[in-house]
């Protein structure tokens, strides 16, 4: 009597195995050879730490493609929306004119601005306090799009750092003023030549600018 075929049973060895493969010895030694090759390649191979080289090839090159994160970092792709920065002018003051457009555009309402006034410059306003709560920020980039003065950017290429307490995640003006200064040709109109224009007293609505596109 023939037993019914048990579907759970092991399929057993493939019928087309050669004698050498059935004997297991040769395949076993081949497998050890693979491991040995990787071992010696990685032991003596040149460790190329360039993080962009993920698929390492070539003789004498280490095959380990691990990036030890805090010590080695892979650059983010261009266009990555990293941590915010307040762009400084060449004289070190922030480009921000405290127009509240970023704060208004922010869907997460994570930007807090307090405006102050310069005494004798063509630019009348500057942020006394400019804080971004990085825990609330959803990294959408709307603030960057909304800014008329190219004063806030997300081009740092890094993300908000890990913090041990919530207050530390609220980045103040000094923390946000990072990176190289930015100057546009049209800036001359605003701060080299003193222009006497009355400053708007109340915050402007979204999408409304008091002057033309100063940046870009």
């Amino acid at each position, binding site marked *: 009597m023939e037993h019914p075929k048990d579907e759970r049973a092991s399929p057993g060895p493939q019928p087309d195995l050669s004698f050498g493969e059935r004997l297991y010895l040769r395949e076993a030694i081949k497998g050890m050879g693979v491991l040995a090759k990787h071992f010696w390649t990685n032991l003596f191979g040149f460790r190329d730490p360039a993080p962009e080289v993920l698929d390492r090839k070539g003789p004498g090159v280490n095959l*380990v493609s691990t990036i030890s994160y805090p010590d080695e970092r892979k650059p983010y792709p261009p266009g990555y929306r990293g941590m915010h920065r307040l762009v*400084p002018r060449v004289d070190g003051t922030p480009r921000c004119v405290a127009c509240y457009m970023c704060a208004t555009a922010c869907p997460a309402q994570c930007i807090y601005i307090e405006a102050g006034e310069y005494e004798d410059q063509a630019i009348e306003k500057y942020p006394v306090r400019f804080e971004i709560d990085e825990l609330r920020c959803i990294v959408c980039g709307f603030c960057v799009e909304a800014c008329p003065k190219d004063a806030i950017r997300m081009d740092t290429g890094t993300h908000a750092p890990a913090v041990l307490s919530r207050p530390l995640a609220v*980045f103040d003006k000094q923390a946000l003023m990072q990176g190289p200064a930015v100057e546009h040709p049209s800036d001359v109109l605003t701060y080299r030549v003193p222009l006497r224009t009355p400053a708007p007293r109340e915050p402007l609505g979204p999408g409304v600018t008091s002057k033309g596109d100063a940046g870009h």
Partner: protein
Amino acid sequence: MAEVTTPVARLASEDFGPKIPPKPVYSTWLRQSVLGWGAFAGFLLAMSWLFLALTRLIIGIGEQIPVSWGLSPAIGTILSLIVVLVMITATLLTMADRKWSALMQDRVGPNRARFSIIPGLRDKPLKGIPHIVADVLKMLFKEDFIPEGAVPNRFLFNLAPLLAFAPAFMLFAVVPVSPEVTFFGARFQLQVARVDWGMLYVFALASIAVFGTALAGWTSNNKLALLGGLRASAQLVSYEVTLGLTLVGAFIVFGSLRLDTMALLQGMTEPGLRAAAAFANRAGDFLARDDSLLFGWLPSWGGVFQPVGMILFLVAAQAEIKRAPFDTPEGESEIIGYFLEYSGLKSGMFYIAEYAETVVIAGIVTTIFLGGYHIPWLEPTIVRTTEGWLGASGIAWLAVLQVFTFILKMLAIIWVMFVVRWAFPRFRYDQIMRLGWKMMLPISLANVALTGAVFLWAGRDGVAWMGIIEWIAFLFFIGFSARAQPSAEPGSHSSTVVEH
């Protein structure tokens, strides 16, 4: 930019921008590699000298004590070989196993522990060596927990790790690491016990290791541990048969059970070395002639005479020390193993015992099959060249190099055993039994019969020829039994796919 004052600002400034480490220059890497490997070789050489020197020192101390017990060579070799060589190698192997497996699998391996309290080593991973210290500290400070079910058998429960731990180290007592040599005026050999029953002692102690695992599984009062203990007992008892029979061929060839005699017979003896060096000096040759070579060119190692014995012994030894692919007693992914209920240092003893057994087995394989401490072809030349360096004889310098060679060979065998461990999946229990009883036992019996017959018929040279033929056949089989090309037309197993 304004100076950074607030904590938030400091945080931001520290983390600003992607930090991409500079690409190291190839020449720097090459220099560091050469320096590192040179330092490693130098360290091993220095340790080889230290083993001899430490033993000599203890012997010297023993001579100063008015009541001489005659134990000082034994104490010296126990200190230098078992406490230093085996213990430290086994400890380092716990990390080497993790690091080497990482290298084989294209990983980095453990590298986060640091000796942060030592100023110069704050940010140095040191190839993971701090992890050893961390592991030991962790085991030391863990609770020594005895499960409720093990309380009635508390004595046996505590005895089991010792029974697993002690034989592993005692096994090394019969392994000769250097020839008998005159070193700083004293004549001694780096071998704890020079006894006639050398290999019998190895087999006897190997079977005592069964008690450790069986007791651990039994007294834990845990069904998984019991299962592990049962498997270990059955496996160890089965493979001891093969373990013994594979070496009978070597006994026939060398005519001795003493490991030091076996090692001695695989190279030149001291009078022969002196004669060959003196002859080369007179003739003005740089290369002195090595008389021990078979047919004038082949090192007379046990592996040449007994390829089948060597391979089977390695496999059986791997099963005997319960390492993968024979690790069903442990089987960490199915049953946790016979040491399931152990914690802290007792668990650590099982762990270290496994690696110590690896070292010992590698030492035994080196001694019997890889020529022991002998350096092939070059020994008389080394004696001739180093004669009189720093006031020491060439024989003494050769002894240092021989200890170094022994350690290198041992490391090579350990490496092979680790490759085996990481290359193979765990065998099923029935597969282990089938391999042991139905394949390895008949092959080893046939090897004994064949070796005996050839030895009677054609003597030692005949056995050497048999070994060479076996090696060639083996390599030919490995190299040329290529996989049969699968047939293109749908076979029996592909038709099932069609049905789906």
